[in-house]
């Protein structure tokens, strides 16, 4: 019986815990990098075809709809803002009594920032908004000429 897709949130979470306990936080950062390089090719492809803002919009809007997330997404003038209410992986783990990996929310930035950075854009990500786990805001904007 294969590891099923519908247990992914828990197994993914516990993989980070296991790696950190065996090899330290560096190992978790390394696996996030690997997933970013491999899995985020979809986002990279969309950005290459449609541009950073439209490509990101398509990626997150499609992905969040498929996951059944409660979210808002707004395109601005060369920017994109995404607010997530009740993040599905966080809610799933709570419902199934899987203890959240302490740094779980960092992985979203670790996965997607390198892709956007490659195209000259940055991601600012804030999570646990109002002290509520599963509430986060992501803003994608272009780096200025000084790299900020």
């Amino acid at each position, binding site marked *: *019986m*294969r*590891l099923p*897709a*519908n247990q*992914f949130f828990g197994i*993914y979470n516990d993989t980070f815990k296991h790696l950190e306990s*065996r090899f330290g936080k560096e190992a978790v950062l390394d696996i996030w990098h*690997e997933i970013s390089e491999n899995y985020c090719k*979809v986002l990279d492809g969309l950005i290459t075809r449609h541009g950073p803002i439209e490509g990101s919009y398509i990626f997150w809007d499609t992905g969040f709809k498929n996951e059944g997330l409660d979210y808002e997404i707004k395109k601005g003038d060369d920017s994109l803002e995404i607010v997530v209410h009740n993040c599905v992986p966080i809610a799933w783990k709570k419902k199934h009594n899987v203890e959240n990996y302490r740094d779980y929310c960092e992985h979203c930035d670790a996965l997607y920032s390198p892709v956007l950075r490659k195209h000259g854009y940055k991601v600012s990500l804030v999570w646990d908004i109002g002290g509520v786990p599963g509430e986060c805001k992501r803003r994608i904007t272009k780096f200025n000429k000084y790299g900020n």
Partner: protein
Amino acid sequence: MTAKAKTQDLSEFYGIYNTMFQFVEDKYGDEELKKYWEFIGEKYYGWLIEDIKKRGTKAIEDYWLSTTENDDIVYELKTDPDRFELKIDSCSAIGFIKKSAHDKLFHKYCQHCRVVNSKIAELSGLEYRVDYDQDKGKCTHVFSK
């Protein structure tokens, strides 16, 4: 038997499992990969182990059926109180990864089932065996008393 029509597509997660397995073997070696899978079997599936101890093969059947939701897997199931036999004719994980433009199937992908399930069986007092053909995405699993 095929699972019901999908309301949600979670197949991409199989690609991420594939990436994680490859990463652990590449970076830390074969023994660490086995330890990782044993950890999943023992610690992550601790709740299933306890359920099997209480309810036997019915617990495995109920768990299996819960995993077929929103999945393309094709399988046959034969169960009785002493034995759970699952024949998979088309594994959704193997199918997805092989079709994926982004993933190369990890050469030991199917071994994760043997290691994870062996650990679950060991800790719940059952015997377990599996025969698989990774290329074809076919396998047969037997948990028995």
